[in-house]
């Protein structure tokens, strides 16, 4: 079976089509509901708004026990502020 990772590594066209894919999905809001409950989204959004987190690299962080992306934290913050 060819795994996604193997495919990504071996495909010589990836450098060409990945940016295209990224453009296609750019406008779609980052989905966090597949792993976070509403309560968790609010808690993370609040913690992020209060700067209660730590970066693990430039676009990933540890917040409320979760390792998530900056974009996901932003989504949580937005939902938290909307609900506040």
């Amino acid at each position, binding site marked *: 079976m060819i795994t996604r*990772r193997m495919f990504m590594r071996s495909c010589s066209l990836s450098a060409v089509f990945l940016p295209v894919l990224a453009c296609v999905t750019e406008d779609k809001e980052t989905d966090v509901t597949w792993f976070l409950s509403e309560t968790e989204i609010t808690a993370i959004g609040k913690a992020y708004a209060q700067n209660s987190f730590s970066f693990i690299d430039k676009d990933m962080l540890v917040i409320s026990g*979760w*390792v998530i992306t900056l974009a996901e934290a932003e989504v949580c913050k937005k939902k938290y502020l909307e609900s506040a």
Partner: protein
Amino acid sequence: MHKDLATLTNQHTVTCDLCIVGAGAAGISMAMDWLDAGKNVVLLEAGGFEFDVETQSLNNGTNIGQRYYALPATRLRFFGGTTMHWGGYCTPLDPIDFEARPYVLHSGWPISFTEFAAFLPAASKMVEIDNETWDLDTYIAGKENYTPLDLNPSVYYSKLFKFSPPTRFGTKYRKALVASTSITVYTHANLTDITLDEEGKVVEKVQAKSLNGNKMTISANHYVLAMGAIQNARMLLVNNKQHKQGIGNHNDLVGRYFMEHPEVKTGQIFLKRPQSMKLYFFDYTKIKMYSELAIAEAAQRAHGILNVTAALHPKKLSGDWAWINKLPEDGKESYDFWVQAEKQISASPPSDVDTKKYLAYQMQIRMEQSPNPNSRITLDSKKDKLGIAEPILNWQLTELERNSIKDMHTLLGKELIQSDVGRLHAPEWVFDTSLEWPATLGGGWHHLGTTRMHNDPKKGVVDANCTIHGINNLHVAGSSCFTTAGAANPTLSLIALTLRLSKHLKQLITK
């Protein structure tokens, strides 16, 4: 043949080529290796062929360190030793475990992984697992639904574990050893005295006693201590008539560097897409292999992390219990608890869990403990029924263990995102190392390191051949010789190391 010291006349004396003290995984493996060697071998076992309360109480001791199980609950003192309640997990130490790593103080074995691995096939035979590859991808090739998580293998990989039936050494090998004409098994023979020659460089004889007062003296060419990491250290320390600090303890190392494998439930993994997780599904006595997530050697080195593996179990089926809060403290109750649980599980059919239905997985880690001289066995003023000082365990963990847990979770969380596999959540204590260890932290009942191996007598109790520095005919078998702990369940590896010592002894004895 078999003789019971409890029924023999007083002052029984025997002479032999090799005297092995302790009939557990190490002692029985060594004895079996001498079955057809044509040499006279004595195998001393403290207990009988069945569990008995009075003998088990000789494993009593006090713990003054990190919260731990009651000592009699973790070790069994009868023929077969602790294999008689072993879970059967088999996986070897990793190459990195043998390396001197700058971020792990006191690391670095005096033997290579290759030297050790040469004995894995014979060790595998002892525990009745196959001798096929340890490479997971090769092992599972063609097996339906055995799909590893698609992570970057230079960061995290899936490590292969094979399962012994589990082999109960006391049951499996009793007949062959008792039928042997060259090996004599003495039951109810507790080692009490080790007598050195005048110069203190050679063991002249050892004495064993039964609880009803019978004694025997064994005079051998070579002696092997195979009683487990607590008892090996205890008996070397307590025999201090000729060397005041105890045998092999000129440099105050005997009993130090006690290591366990800290085991605890930590974070959860949330898969983005359902997939078969059959490869990771543990079903005691029903599976012959499975896999745990393991941190790659390159990642360990790059981030200064101890070796760690994580078992994954569907979160909904996992529960919040921990062995350390469940196992009775009394030796008999603990053994009965285990036997009953195993009977129930063995009688039940294999689980029909469809892992594709679950997206959330609980991680239970088993990790390397760094070698720490302050984590140690010493002697108590309290004595057992044979008049021997009881052991005191001071199990001590360090900041490196806490930081490694934090870093391995951070790294895994990051890798799950980068590989688009899922997300990770962990409790507060994982990421905040200033918090106390959770009440669920236990160990695997793995006792390691109290007679550590090093070629420098100032840094180790035994040399690369497992011979006690300065005493040419006294050797140690088992995990007390481990220089570092690795993250692998130790039984398979300690047997491999024992068979390596056995080969060395054959060269010495048949000269």
